């Protein structure tokens, strides 16, 4: 690479949260014009604070305790508010994680795009319009006239993020800060938006500071990588070098958390534990004036079997119906039509096998911050699951609870704590213990690790796999994360638009996907593969270099 002039220089920057607590410690980082630098780290690593500091937009409680940030050789900390306004937007722009909240809901897209241009450029309103139209087309949106008069709620998440990127790039900034720009999007859309964004910045010579917890994604797109941990930059270097030969323990630890496929297991698939036939779920048929609206069909006839001791993964995008399927199998929703069988018996509330099913089929929810009653201790939460257990004395129950807590690694004084005193990973362990304490036959895990940080996710996933192995329960693992699924599943079911697109053993689905949708899902995520010498190397699962197709388009009907 030809050496280009330094654009951004962060010099020994320390940010303090008061009382001597540093959220960023002595960070130094350089960014050349047009360069893409990725910062990876878990939540609390200071990566977001560091990026906010570049715009001088850190929260009030955070102050600079040492160091400086230079943009084109000028200190940002020496600037007054007026000078900073001339930097924010025209020189440094930002794309946020949450496209749902980063656009103002009450202003039309056109107003919001114009706002930035009019603030910084002298021309009249009309003269900006061609530029806006061109930019919207550039980010892959069609029917731009209609988009300009539409409001944010009329767009899907992917389209909103395209609009955000258009708005950031309109002023052709020298630096774009992208804070988890695609984390909230579905896998397929993620890749499209990411590649569109980087193509656009490349054309404009804009440097990108890409902040993410998603190591494979950063590895795929960044020229250089910065690894942060608890406020410290622990490693910096060209991406290929960091991946191939990580120098710092923490980087190695991060790389180890990448899901690895395990050897296939033998599953006895003679008598299913639970089976579903032709599940259909319709919502609504909302009563309008004088007529009934057409019902929304969420599931359109899904049949599946879960065998004893088997881990079945259900994958699909948001809106595919996978969560609904989990809710029906867990008994939270009644299907509009179709049948369920448990151990061969038809399953209906009140039928003879229902009590057995209700006791033995349990669920772990996605959000551990919502799935535990905030007013109960860990002990009480787990013990509650045994309230209806038959044939267990009080001391048996106590023992079981202790055992379950020990199994999930929460022994000792954790029992008396409340959920708010636990981290996300610990809470999810409590949720798992609550299921485990019943010695269940089936655990339904709906995105059970999606809300967790990468290293914690790996730990919880390992724990789940180990407990599944030890207690032999079946598991229905619902996830959008193919990496996780690859690690844990025996069999994979791909759901799209309420029907099963493809199903088969893990190896069959991952190695020879038959369905184009499955292929698209697999293509969307880069994969890091361990190399024998301790590093990793990056590969796409299937053909790389797919053209960046324009997105499904125009404003969605509300």
């Amino acid at each position, binding site marked *: 690479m030809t050496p280009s002039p330094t654009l951004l220089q962060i010099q020994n920057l320390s940010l303090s949260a008061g009382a001597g607590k540093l959220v960023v410690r002595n960070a130094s980082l350089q960014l050349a014009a047009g360069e893409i630098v990725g910062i990876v780290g878990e939540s609390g690593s200071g990566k977001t604070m560091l990026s906010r500091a570049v715009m001088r937009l850190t929260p009030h409680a955070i102050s600079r305790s040492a160091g400086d940030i230079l943009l084109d050789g000028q200190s940002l900390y020496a600037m007054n508010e007026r000078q900073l306004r001339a930097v924010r937007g025209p020189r440094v722009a930002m794309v946020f994680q949450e496209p749902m909240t980063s656009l103002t809901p009450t202003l039309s897209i056109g107003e919001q795009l114009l706002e930035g241009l009019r603030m910084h450029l002298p021309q009249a309103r009309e003269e900006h319009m061609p530029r806006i139209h061109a930019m919207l087309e550039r980010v892959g949106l069609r029917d731009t006239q209609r988009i300009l008069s539409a409001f944010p709620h009329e767009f899907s998440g992917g389209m909103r993020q395209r609009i955000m990127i258009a708005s950031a790039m309109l002023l052709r900034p020298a630096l774009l800060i992208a804070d988890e720009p695609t984390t909230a999007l579905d896998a397929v859309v993620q890749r499209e938006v990411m590649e569109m964004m980087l193509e656009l910045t490349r054309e404009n010579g804009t440097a990108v500071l890409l902040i993410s917890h998603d190591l494979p994604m950063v590895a795929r797109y960044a020229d250089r990588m910065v690894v942060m941990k608890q406020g410290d930059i622990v490693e910096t270097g060209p991406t290929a070098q960091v991946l191939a030969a990580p120098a710092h323990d923490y980087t190695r630890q991060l790389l180890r958390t990448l899901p690895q496929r395990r050897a296939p297991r033998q599953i006895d698939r003679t008598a299913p534990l639970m089976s579903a036939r032709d599940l259909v779920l319709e919502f609504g048929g909302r009563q309008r004036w004088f007529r009934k609206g057409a019902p929304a069909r969420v599931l359109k006839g899904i049949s599946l079997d879960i065998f004893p001791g088997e881990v079945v993964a259900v994958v699909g995008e948001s809106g595919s119906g996978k969560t609904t399927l989990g809710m029906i199998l867990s008994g939270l929703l009644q299907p509009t039509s179709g049948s369920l069988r448990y151990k061969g018996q038809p399953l209906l509330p009140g039928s003879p096998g229902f009590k057995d099913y209700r006791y033995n089929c349990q669920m772990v929810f*996605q959000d551990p911050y919502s*799935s535990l009653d*905030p*007013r109960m201790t860990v002990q009480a939460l787990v013990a*509650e*699951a045994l309230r*209806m257990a038959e044939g267990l004395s009080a001391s048996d129950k106590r023992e079981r609870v202790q055992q379950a807590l020990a199994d999930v690694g929460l022994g000792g004084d954790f029992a008396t704590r*409340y959920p708010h005193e636990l981290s996300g990973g610990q809470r999810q362990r409590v949720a798992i213990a609550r299921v485990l304490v019943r010695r269940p036959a089936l655990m339904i895990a709906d995105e059970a690790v999606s809300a967790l940080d990468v290293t914690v996710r790996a730990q919880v996933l390992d724990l789940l796999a180990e407990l599944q192995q030890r207690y032999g329960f079946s598991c229905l693992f619902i996830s959008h994360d193919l990496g996780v699924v690859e690690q844990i599943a025996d069999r994979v079911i791909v759901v799209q638009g309420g029907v099963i697109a493809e199903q088969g053993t893990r190896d069959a689905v991952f190695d020879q996907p038959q369905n184009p949708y499955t292929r698209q899902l697999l293509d969307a995520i880069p994969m890091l593969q361990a190399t024998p010498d301790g590093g990793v190397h990056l590969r796409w699962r299937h053909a790389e270099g797919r053209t960046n197709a324009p997105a499904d388009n125009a404003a969605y009907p509300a």
Partner: protein
Amino acid sequence: MNRRSLSFWLGAGLVSVVVVVALLATFWTPYDPLKLDFKTRLAAPGWQHWMGTDELGRDVLSRLMRGTATSIRISLSTVFLATFFGVLIGALSGYLRGWPDRILMAINDALLAFPGLLMALGLLAVFGASTSGIIIALALAYASSVVRVVRGTVLGLRERDFVRASRVMGNSETYTLLRHVLPNCIAPVIVMATSMCGWIILAESSLSFLGLGVAPPAPTWGNMLAGSRSYVSQAAWLAIFPGLAISLALLGINLLGDALRDRLDPRMRRRV
């Protein structure tokens, strides 16, 4: 002592003073609160009468003490009734949803549409102006806002995963409601109940003023305040002392309520 325990002790102190005074007044007051003495009409506060006398020469301190018992009894019973029924109906409505919810809410919204005082007036016309009449009328008038708040909270909690988890566990709906939903409603209910104490004391005084409250000459804080109106330029103490009593009692109840709410919330009890 941190801020939270300070507000607890301050609140508890004020409330216990009010309670002790109310109890004391049932046995003893410095003067007979009903005894007229035309020789000392509108006497300023002094050694004889610490808080002065009113337009009929009655001792203000004695009336205030006697009034404490009446006002506090009305206020607390009303709040208890309104909260109890408000929580019951609100929780059922929010938890059951569907047509029971629609019916209950239609009635409740109709009640809410009336100003509380107007409703109480109408009800008093039915029940007759007595202490229990006032309590029932005010409780009915104020319960509807509790219903709204509790229903809203329950509707939100109902969709939380821990309520779903309880259902997946096979717990009955009643158990889930009592064990998981209601305890998590407690914070808004306490806030409502404590601020309601104040509204009730004032509402009672308004009713007394209209002649529908506690019948004179029996003193309440409200009717003392109302009665002071015509003399406030000559004898400000007639308004100042009942007003002060109301303010201090409400301050105490509110501080105590906030402290109680925090004390009952495990998230506030300990920090990591």
